[in-house]
């Protein structure tokens, strides 16, 4: 009898633990508080030898798309075109692994800002939302206060700045101010900032807005190094930090439970040669409770309801009104593509007003006539 009660107590205990665990996971599922995900991925380098920066950005793009964020929620900025560059021996491809194992460019890519459009001004306008009214939706960051945004920057940088396209720079102060503008306009719920440049940690030193977590590939005073060259393509394909980040993300799937602490462990000094850094003091939640898919994926929350929903009657398609039943008397025709006679006799429309022909001549004649009338005709011999 004692054994029986003991066993039943143990079973009860296990059951209670299981319930609590279930509640915990369910609670965790709803703990992040965001409803949509956005990503802003920027490559700031131009020229063929900076192939690796484009490959970095495209590999993050690929992972983010694979985990569920749609193209309409990704703002991809590539400063130069590597895939269809004439130096590329395999056009329409950008590889991340040696021996051309993985084509991160793919078949279904949508680049929103490309070439000369990738400037500091456009980047800051995208972040703060202050774009001209005619900007199309695919080029806007339409986030709200329940959006989790992933921002990834790569390129050449230094202590406190990041170089855009070899002609301008963005400083860490400007970036921090842009994030503060975003916070004050309630444009994000939580922000994850990843930067893969030399001395990347200097870029997140100046942040002061809440709910920002930042990762960088190297500390101040260190250089981020590139991973491996491909002999057929002739350039370095990826940077080390993003290479190991890509390897880490390839293991993540939409239901994965990995959290940020695993992300901080990506690329230790033995693999990366530089020391990756991170900053979490501005972030309100504990990084151990933040899932990777909170930023890299687009996990939607589903609300289950038991109520019955009443559907309305089916909507009938509105028939077009009787399409001009009356017989059209007008016959249309195509235009002559090169109407030579019409062109030759075409009078060019003058937009600026010119005095009528002969006006100046008539004016001078009038002046001369008046002069000779007043002073007599004998002065005429001085003219001729």
């Amino acid at each position, binding site marked *: 009898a004692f054994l029986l009660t003991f066993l039943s107590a143990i079973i009860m205990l296990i059951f209670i633990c299981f319930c609590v665990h279930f509640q915990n996971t369910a609670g965790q599922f709803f703990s992040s508080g965001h409803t949509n995900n956005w990503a802003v991925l920027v490559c700031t380098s131009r020229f063929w030898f900076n192939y690796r920066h484009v490959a970095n950005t495209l590999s993050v793009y690929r992972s983010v798309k694979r985990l569920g964020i749609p193209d309409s929620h990704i703002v991809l900025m590539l400063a130069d075109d590597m895939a269809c560059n004439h130096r590329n021996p395999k056009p329409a491809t950008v590889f991340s692994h040696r021996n051309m194992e993985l084509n991160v460019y793919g078949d279904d890519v*949508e680049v929103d800002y490309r070439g000369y459009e990738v400037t500091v001004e456009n980047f800051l306008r995208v972040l703060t939302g202050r774009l001209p009214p005619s900007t199309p939706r695919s080029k806007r960051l339409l986030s709200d206060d329940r959006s989790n945004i992933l921002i990834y920057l790569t390129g050449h940088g230094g202590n406190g700045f990041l170089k855009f396209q070899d002609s301008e720079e963005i400083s860490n102060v400007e970036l921090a101010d842009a994030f503060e503008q975003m916070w004050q306009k309630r444009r994000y719920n939580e922000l994850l900032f990843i930067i893969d440049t030399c001395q990347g940690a200097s870029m997140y030193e100046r942040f002061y807005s809440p709910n920002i977590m930042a990762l960088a590939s190297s500390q101040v005073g260190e250089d981020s190094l590139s991973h491996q060259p491909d002999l057929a393509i002739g350039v370095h394909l990826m940077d080390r930090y993003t290479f190991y980040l890509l390897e880490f993300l390839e293991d993540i799937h939409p239901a994965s439970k990995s959290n940020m602490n695993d992300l901080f462990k990506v690329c230790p000094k033995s693999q990366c040669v530089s020391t990756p850094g991170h900053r979490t003091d501005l972030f309100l939640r504990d990084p151990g409770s933040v899932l990777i898919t909170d930023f890299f994926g687009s996990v939607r929350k589903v609300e289950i309801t038991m109520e019955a929903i009443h559907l309305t009657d089916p909507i009938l398609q509105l028939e077009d009104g009787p399409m001009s039943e009356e017989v059209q008397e007008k016959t249309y025709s195509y235009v002559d593509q090169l109407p030579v006679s019409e062109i*030759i006799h075409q009078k060019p429309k003058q937009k600026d007003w010119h005095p009528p022909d002969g006006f100046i001549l008539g004016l001078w004649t009038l002046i001369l006539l008046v002069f000779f009338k007043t002073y007599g005709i004998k002065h005429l011999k001085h003219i001729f």
Partner: protein
Amino acid sequence: MHSYFWLLIGRWEATEVDEAALGDSAADKLGVRASDTFVLTPTPQPKDDFQEELVIRPLHSGDIYASFQFRTLWETDFMRENKVSHYRLFPKSLGQVISKFSVRELHISFTQGYWRTMQWGQPFLPSPPGAELWVWFQDSVTDVDAAWKELTNVLSGIFCASLNFIDSTNTVQPSASFKPLGIVNETDHRFLRYATLPREIVCTENLTPWKKLLPCGSKAGLAVLLKSEKLFHSSFFSQTVHIRPVCQDRECKTTSWELRQTLNVVFDLHTSGQGKREWSLFKMFSRTLTEACPLASSSKIYIDVTDNPQEEYFELSPATPLLSQAVVLGDRRTFSVYDLTQQVTFGTVRSLNLLIRWKSTEGDMLRPLLHAERYVAGYGLQTGEIHTVMYNNHPFRSFPVLLLDSVPWYLRLYIHTLTVTSKGKDNTPSYIHYQPSKDRMRPHLLEMLVQLPPHSVTEVTVQFERALLKWTEYTPDPNHGFYVGSSVISALVPSSVAMDTNITQEQPLFSSFFPCKEESSYFVRVYTEPLLVNLPTPDFSMPYNVICLTCTVVAVGYGSLYNLLTRSFQIEEPNPRLAKKIANFIRRIRGVPLLS
């Protein structure tokens, strides 16, 4: 009178309006009615129609030219008050663009590579390198420039291209070229805008949204062949979108909107063909065809076999009994036709892989009658000369051509040095329209109607001077150079074969793009190469160098002078050596006077 009628699916009308009868019939559309007589109209013609075709033309140099044409016809009115809301085959994004900006015609093309007319002949649809956009607006538009600016921004979002760089510095308003290709009442060139971006790159990110505009996407029909890895590994790639109103039938009392998407690609013998003169669908596109697009009313493949009447030069497999003739580009060509809507085309293996294998490499190429080149002459970074050379290869006929040149403002043209010479003699154009440029606002526009004598070379030269740009106006890579857009030459070339002026006869799509008004000539547009000119580029590191140098000079020169003038000197006791220090210390303890 009772009679049974089978009701077809679709609209039907009652001769006598009978409330009760109508109420009943609405309820059971498919049932058999046995009461009042009803006039049954047959299934109404579907309002929209989609056709796809692929034309493959083997070129004389061993390359192969493939042209895809997708056409959607839709009978609707975008300009009426209540907006169109039900889109089926016509893509919604383009329909909204047309109605919002009151566009009458829209032509946009993205091209990578340059079309080599002398080696490849004339293309079915010409396009210049880079991006080109020309639009005819409706008469009801009051501010054409504002509509143009917004339209370019919207299109840059749709096609993922940087079309937002089109602004007043590269937009022109041609006065005689680019007449509308569709139905129109009258042509007022105030509503026409033309711009070209020769620097624009075309890659998969432009092909992806283009493919999404097709009704079947890239999942069925001919569009499954469009794989970017093969398409961009080619000598020439061009994708275009053309929207215009067209006649519906021969009487042309009603118009419908036509959307044509074309894709032209030329595969090179050595890079894609591995040197072997044998082409197949799999070799070109790395795919074969398994079915036609279910939404298409016609889906055909045409292979140009005019040069191969007895199969002595190349062999085509699988064989097909269908042959068709069409007059295209002034020549009567014969085509072998594969109809993909018939199951028999796919054979027992359920897939179609056309194979063209060459047996011998003889054969002459038809020399194109009109051909043009352009280059920059001169030396140094101050002045230069633009030469446009036009070749008329017809042995005895002369014909007029309209030359359109749009040169950016930073190349200051001197129009008084403009010369047009043919066969060494002066050739005065019968029409010249020149609009001078305004710095940073407007480019040069030069349009000339020149008569090309038979079998001659006409050269147009104009001198220019390069301007200095402000240092913020340079691109991030200024040493690459600056592009000048292609010249456009529009001409009515005499045709050796009578052209078909009947616009609505069943013609293959590729031969019915340019409307034909007379039988003896056909309209053709030739684009020259874009030019790449170097502008005098400053050394962008100079501001930094100057600051460093000035600060150093000021610090060293003035600083030392200031120190000399204001520093005062004091005599200082030298520090005693260590031994003396210890001795003094011991003496101090002893109370004895210290050493000096």
